């Protein structure tokens, strides 16, 4: 169990490219986050909990689907921590462990409707195609 957690943690750090030790715990990411009230764990908490290896609550939390990938936290973080990338990596871990829920280009036309902003499709690719 210990080992699995540590492997997951390393995988999350690897695919996100984030170094949580750079965080100075200022909370500017969570101050910026437009999805704050929807989330149970907030960007700075993701950074802290991944650093301290407290992954289980994050993996189970709905928060990973509430992040809008707007990258506001990435843009504002004074230390270049890039919390959104970390959140995405946690989300990817869940998706992968559930059995590679990949989005293929072919699936797109069926999902298109006039209301869907292009940015969302881009985000969807980022989230589901890795």
């Amino acid at each position, binding site marked *: 169990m210990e080992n699995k957690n540590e492997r997951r943690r390393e995988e999350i750090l690897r695919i996100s490219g984030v170094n949580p030790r*750079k965080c*100075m*715990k*200022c*909370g*500017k*990411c*969570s*101050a*910026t*986050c437009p999805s*704050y*009230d929807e989330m149970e764990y*907030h960007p*700075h908490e993701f950074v802290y909990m991944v650093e301290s290896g407290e992954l289980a609550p994050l993996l189970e939390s709905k928060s990973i689907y509430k992040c809008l990938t707007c990258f*506001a936290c990435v843009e*504002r*973080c*004074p*230390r*270049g*921590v890039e919390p959104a990338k970390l959140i995405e990596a946690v989300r990817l871990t869940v998706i992968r462990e559930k059995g590679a829920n990949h989005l293929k280009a072919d699936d797109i036309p069926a999902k298109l409707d006039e209301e869907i902003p292009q940015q969302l499709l881009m985000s969807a690719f980022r989230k589901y195609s890795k």
Partner: protein
Amino acid sequence: MQRIGVFVCHCGTNIAGTVDVVAVAEALKNEPGVVHSAEYQYMCSQAGQDLIKAAIKEHNLSGIVVCSCSPRMHEATFRKTAAAAGLNPYMVEIANIREQCSWIHKDMASGTEKAIILGKAAIAKVNLNTPLTPGESPVTKRALVIGGGIAGIQTALDIADAGFPVDIVETKPTIGGKMAQLDKTFPTLDCAACILTPKMVDVAQNEKIRIFSYSEVVDVRGFVGNFDVTIKKRARYVKEDICTGCGLCTEKCPQKKVPNEFNLGMDNRRAIYIPFAQAVPKVATIDADYCTMLKTGKCGVCAKVCTAGAIDYEAKDEFIEEKYGAVVVATGFNPISMDKFDEFAYNQSKDVITSLEFERLTNAAGPTAGKLLRPSDGEHPHTIVFVQCVGSRCEACAEKGKEYCSKICCMYTAKHAMLTRDKYPDTDVYVFYIDVRTPGKAFDEFYRRAVEEYGVHYIKGMVGKVSPEGNKLKVQASDLIAGKQLHIDADLVVLAAAIEPDKSARGLATMLTASMDTNDFFTEAHPKLRPVESPTAGVFLSGTCQGPKDIPETVSQAGAAASKVIGLLCKDKLTGNPCVAQSDEMMCNGCSSCERVCPYGAITYSDKEFRMPDRTTKIRRVASVNPAVCQGCGACTVACPSGAMDLNGFKNNQIMAEVDAICKM
């Protein structure tokens, strides 16, 4: 043949931890010229030095190699040791087996191997060393202080007090710096003007001090004790010796729409102006960018109203040349630009201000006569949000912020918050902080008073976004302790902007050949032991040009810099550095390559008569080096195509011998 002694230092475990010092001493024993080799725990200690002295005498040594820390650390120490034992100090070589060896190696075998190689190189060099004797140069007993903030003022007063003449060069029309713009000062809350302006008057009245205001240093030549400086006195179009500072012109000038920089553009001044009532020198200055007379030739109001006849539209920049023995840099700081921090809406709303602007808004001599009013509509703000660390401690955004802590903003924000609550108890005051850093005498107590006595809301968290909406500023922030995102409708947002060195500092550093760090703060000769000297001899550092500081720290550093200057000016003669370049006139072909590369202008040419082997004479142009100006950088020795230029103490054959010794391994 030299008789060389080798001394290997353990430096406690600093060296001995990764280098087998006994093996090094043993290996170096058999090198050419070595007659004695020893190791000891601390060579720099009294006992270590005694050991070296005894060995010099006992073995009649002609040169020594100390395998120890960097020569920057203890070369001078060991040279003194050698001299005390009757050896020429330039017969000492240091093999740096600490910084360049033990500290960067983990493995004993490779650390030891490298230490031996470094030792061999130093021995190879000493074999070719010759005794050198330094020359002497006189000291000009006058100091130059660049920058007239509280740092420059204090340094100048202290130097003048010791009886030496001092000149202050200040770019602005008045001395005083940022402190003149402040309202009250932490931690005792005395009014800045009340403690600063008497010092400014002291400067004006001190006959040892000359002030060159509205001026800048444009050229520096020479070296410690003998700087030749050119000062550009910009035309202010007002005769300083005639203007009485009555200020009539500044009331009558029809050009009223000039942003007033002293109030950070929050109100306007005239084209002819005196920055503030207590300015020193108290004389008017015409701003050529705005004066209609200077731009179009039509106006002349100020000349008409000036009863003293001080206005001179024909004035030109003047250049003054002066000699100085010492130069003190006191160019201070400025808050960084907030232009790139869109999230705080500084450029979108007049009611988002910096802390320095806040000082002006609360200053009785400021644009609102000291009443705290919103810049947009002149209303009293009821909710104020202060944001700390704006652009400080910002590693990710190098193009907008600074990686360091600006050190003063925690304290002045506490001051602003406390004073606001004191004067306007109906105001809600929030301070967003990452950490509250208040190490200093009576500092933490001060901050706690803001919280406990004055009820300032300190919130651990950061502001993420400020959006102007109607006449409110919507502040979105995190409260990390409550685990909440906060939304505050504020009337005023105050940003504690990071501070940076004055932009002119880099150019000045180049002129002075003084070094700077990556943030453009001047570097001190040693961060702990020589904090007010620059590594360039004769150049001293005072105040915030060296790093962020509050007033108490600035003043202590200013006094320390003054005492170093006084120590220098007290000397009649200085001993120079004998490791200077020398040209071999027989080899020099007069090509000027060396002159072009010398950063100190130490090389000149002259035509000399030479007797040729066939008994004819020939006039040839040859280079010669002024040993008092040469800093021994060695640039010329590399540039010289005919190998005529050589550096004493670092001769080409000595360097090659070192390289050979290393390559032989």
